[in-house]
Every structure is written in C-alpha cells, then in structure tokens.
C-alpha cells in the first residue's frame, strides 16, 4: 500500500494510464544494480531514485574526480569512493529507496551498466563525443569499440536518461529488446555488432 506521502510524491506516475498505483508499487518493489558512476550512470541512477525504484545497489570504488560527477555528486566529495558518495546524494532526493554499496564488485570503466533484477540482459549506457549509446545486451561493447573522445555533458545526460527510461520500461512493462542504439544529432541507429569477440 502506498502512503499518503508516496501518493503525492509519485502522483505524476500514478496519473499515467499505463502505470497507476499498481505500477508504482511494482517500482517500489523493484531492484537494480548500477556498475559505474560515470556521468551517464549518475543521470541514470538519479532518475531511477526519483522514480521510486525500491532498492538500488551501486558499485564503483573509483574516487570522485575534482569536478564531482554532476548532477549527482558535488565537487566537495572529490576523493571519496564514488559509490559511497552516491548514497547520501541519492537519499537526499528520495527516502523511499534502499541504497547499498556493493564492494569490491565489478564496475564499468567506460559508461555505465545497469542490471535490473529479473532481466536476462544488462542495460548499457555510454556517451562518446556528441553521441549517446544505450541498449540491452548480454555484455557491454568492448573498450576497443569505444572511440576516444570526451563526452559532452548533454550526451552523457541523454545516455543516462534513456537508460533510466529503459529500466523503468522493463519494470513496468517487462520490455527489454536486445540491441544497442546510437543517438546522435537527434537521430538514432542500431550499433554495429562488436567485431572484437
């Protein structure tokens, strides 16, 4: 049963015909693990926490860089393990979410990997230059497939936000179609299969 505070907090979800109170209860009972608190991972996990995903496990022992990891982790947390820094940041946005750090665990050096509980595939998200890659796969594309090129903040935001919407779509509708897509310049195309495996 949803509390009064939850009914208000998640009102805009409950209003969606496809979600309703039952959909929101399903989200509150869902769990996801995030490997890699990169900018993409930060956007993804923040939207998932705001949406009320009930349990979020984060794994990324790398130190927070000097500039922080916007929009989640401020520069004041520089040097602290990213996963430890993410927990209070997320908790401040939504007390409904059970947050855990799993260490040592695995983490994605490039981009972010999300493992929703109950999904056969993982959700991969990475930004490179102006492009955003997102999709369900058995394994993330290998590092050799990633061209060098620092991602723009908005490409990271797009990758992470698309990832969050995909994960929510899995929890709500059970959908997880395989295939990684590349979004660039407002358009999208399927990513060519990794030739390195």
């Amino acid at each position: 049963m949803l509390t009064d505070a939850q009914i208000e907090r998640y009102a805009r979800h409950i209003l969606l015909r496809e979600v309703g109170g039952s959909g929101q209860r399903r989200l509150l009972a869902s769990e996801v693990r995030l490997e890699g608190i990169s900018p993409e991972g930060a956007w993804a996990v923040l939207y998932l926490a705001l949406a009320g995903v009930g349990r979020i496990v984060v794994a990324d022992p790398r130190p927070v860089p000097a500039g922080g990891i916007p929009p989640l982790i401020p520069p004041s947390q520089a040097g602290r393990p990213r996963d430890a820094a993410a927990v209070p940041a997320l908790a401040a946005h939504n007390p409904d979410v059970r947050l855990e750090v799993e260490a040592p665990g695995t983490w994605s050096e490039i981009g972010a990997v999300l493992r929703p509980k109950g999904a056969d595939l993982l959700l991969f998200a990475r930004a490179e230059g102006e492009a955003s890659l997102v999709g369900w796969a058995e394994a993330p594309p290998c590092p050799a497939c990633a061209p060098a090129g620092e991602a723009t903040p908005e490409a990271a935001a797009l990758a992470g936000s698309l990832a969050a919407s995909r994960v929510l779509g899995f929890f709500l509708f059970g959908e997880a179609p395989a295939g990684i897509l590349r979004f660039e310049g407002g358009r999208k195309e399927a990513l060519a299969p990794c030739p390195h495996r």
Partner: protein
Amino acid sequence: MTVARTVDIRSYRCPMTWVRVKLALEAIAPGEVLEVLLSGEEPARNIPRSAADEGHEVLGSEEGPEGMRLWLRKGC
C-alpha cells in the same frame, strides 16, 4: 445501485483529486461502482471527464449540502 467503495476527495486539489479517484478505482473490480465525494467547480468538471477518458462510465451525480456525489462504474 450498490456502491463498492466511496472516496472523499473534498480536501484535495488537482491533480491529487484525480489521483485519489484513480487509486480508488484500482481497488474495485470492473463493473463495480465507485462513489466520489467532491466539492468545487474544477473537480466537478474534471473528474467525470478524466473518468470517461479512461474508459469508466459516469452514472450520474447529485448535489448535496456537503458537496457533490458522483457515481462511476469501473470499465475494463
């Protein structure tokens, strides 16, 4: 007409009014009747409209001293 459930939304404002009615409709079975207690012009307009939009039948309404009573039959 038997009422399966009653929900009182007089203390709420849009969109919480419709949110509360929606949650009450979820709690009853298709074909059952929900009674809504509401007051004010805006919910009197919006609740029947939102209900119809989502496939529920507006059976009727009645003005009373404490507000309006509205009856909705839950669609499939």
